[in-house]
């Protein structure tokens, strides 16, 4: 037994307090950079938002900044349509790929297959766009010109968000306790039925979070979409109609835009930012709920 030491002392508590202070300052600095960015966007949008023309973003029938037409709705629809279609395609494919990796793939394939998906996640969007422009668009044009279309944009987006869906779904599936599938097997459920009735429902919230994050990525994607979507400002009527997304619009025009026009481009950036941020927050909620379920 060691000799009794007085408890009053300041030295050893010092480390943690200074660490906490350092980290707090680091956090504040980081947060303030983020704050700066948001402020910057707001400042840039001010001319467009403060003017009498707020409503024009909705009421103007199209987007002709040089002729004072600032209707954003067609581009919003284009953005939403391409994203929705991409999610529609990527979700089953991504979950399928995740299930394949976990349950069906022959052992020697698992690692290469996962590596392949990881690599897919790292390919530059310019490369996707390049491939889309030279391979995919002409292919579609052969059936239904012009080729550069909602369909092309959605397909490229699908490939781009697949890794996000697949990798995050796999993580969610892996976090389902072993005992669940064991229990299902004990009930005599087949592999397919176990997956559909036990595994997927248990991993549901994780998969949902994956889909939401993928949606955010699809909404924010710029370069690849710009290269394959045709960039015509119109509300798409069919899969083969060209569209322009909000991000592509920013990238196409920002370098040339001045004053009010430039400001409106920031407005579209702000709209997009809010949509994606809302999605991200929703994803957190879902994930959080998933976390507390597991704890319970």
């Amino acid at each position, binding site marked *: 037994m060691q000799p009794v030491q007085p408890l009053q002392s300041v030295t050893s508590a010092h*480390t*943690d307090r200074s660490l*906490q202070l350092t*980290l707090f300052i*680091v*956090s*504040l*600095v*980081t*947060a303030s950079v*983020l*704050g*700066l*960015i*948001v402020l*910057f*966007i707001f400042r840039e949008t001010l001319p467009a938002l403060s003017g009498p023309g707020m409503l024009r973003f909705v009421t103007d029938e199209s987007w002709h900044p040089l002729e004072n037409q600032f209707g954003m709705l067609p581009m919003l629809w284009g953005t939403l349509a391409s994203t929705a279609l991409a999610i529609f395609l990527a979700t*089953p*494919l991504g979950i*399928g*790929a995740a299930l*394949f*990796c976990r349950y*069906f793939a022959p052992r020697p394939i698992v690692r290469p297959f996962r590596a392949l*998906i990881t*690599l897919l*996640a*790292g*390919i*530059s*969007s*310019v*490369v996707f766009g*390049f491939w889309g422009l030279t*391979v995919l668009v002409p292919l579609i044009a052969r059936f239904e010109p012009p080729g550069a279309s909602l369909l092309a944009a959605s397909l490229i987006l699908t*490939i781009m968000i*697949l890794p996000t869906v697949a990798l995050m779904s796999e993580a969610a599936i892996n976090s389902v306790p072993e005992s669940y599938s064991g229990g299902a097997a004990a*009930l*005599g*459920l*087949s*592999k*397919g*039925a176990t*997956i559909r009735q036990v595994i997927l429902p248990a991993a549901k919230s994780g998969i949902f979070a994956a889909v939401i994050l993928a949606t955010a990525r699809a909404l924010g994607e*710029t*370069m690849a979409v710009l290269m394959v979507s045709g960039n015509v400002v119109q509300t798409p009527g069919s899969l083969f109609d060209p569209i322009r997304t909000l*991000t592509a619009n*920013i*990238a196409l025009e*920002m370098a040339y835009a001045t004053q009010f026009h430039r400001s409106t481009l920031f407005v579209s*950036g702000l709209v*997009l*930012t*809010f949509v*994606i*941020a809302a999605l*991200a927050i929703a994803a*957190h909620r879902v994930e959080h709920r998933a*976390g507390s379920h597991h704890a319970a």
Partner: protein
Amino acid sequence: MQPDSSVSCAPGLMAAPSVAGSTLLTAQVHAKLSERLFVAAVWLAAALVAASFLWIVADIAFHGFAKLSWSFLTEAPRSSGRKGGISTILVSTLLILAVTVAVAVPLGVGVAVWLSEFSRRSSRTARVINIALDVLAGIPSIVFGLFGNAFFCVFLGLGFSIVSGGLTLACMALPILIRATESGLSAVPHDWRQGAAALGLSKAAALWHVLLPAAAPAITAGLLLGIGRAVAETAALVFTSGYVDRMPESLMDSGRSLAVHIYDLSMNVSGGDQAAYASALVLIGLLIVINAVAIQLSNRFMKSRIQPA
């Protein structure tokens, strides 16, 4: 588990005892069919994913391999990149990445540690930072570019430089890295924190010896995602690190990144396609190398610090 094994025990559990034998049989056939369909669908999905990936890579490799050579990697670009190689661009890319990692890792890990270990979830500051992170993750990359230009290049006077580019990319990579580190830390069993506290260890010691090493794989994964996003970034870099394809002499020099180079070659330079394909191939290779190295480093770091069972 094989589908057949379900036959022996499933009926008793899944069907009511009163069901006649023939109905049981059709139910079995039905179950078997849907099982087959399901398996087929999964295989099909996997095949489609693999096929689309291989298609893209094969296309790039097919067009790019002819141009790819050792001298392509070691020579400076000539004639706007049509001739020569990409050595200067590789160097700029790596420098930009180095700045990004050097800034984003300490900041990101620091913020994540503060959020998950020191702040209370419900505190106002923590909530504000969390929301700021979500918003940040949602900003289109071109807006980052314009912000980086206005703030780092002009306001801070860093000009078009590798530092400006790296800092801008660090802002982009931060949310990903912070989230990954946070989730990595939250996956570390609470028992270890309690154990460390009960031993009178400082939080710093617990973090350094146990919590961060245990979260290292998640941090690495987040960092790789962040690097992947950074290295693929075009729009944000055109406005910050710039377009100059000279060999950078310091971090204050402007330097063109690989993705910007690829975009310029394929969109602005007639006759640049082949070089663009080859550069794209190099970019993919670079990512593979970075991934491998990062995972190695993180494993070694983990091994040197912790020994999971």
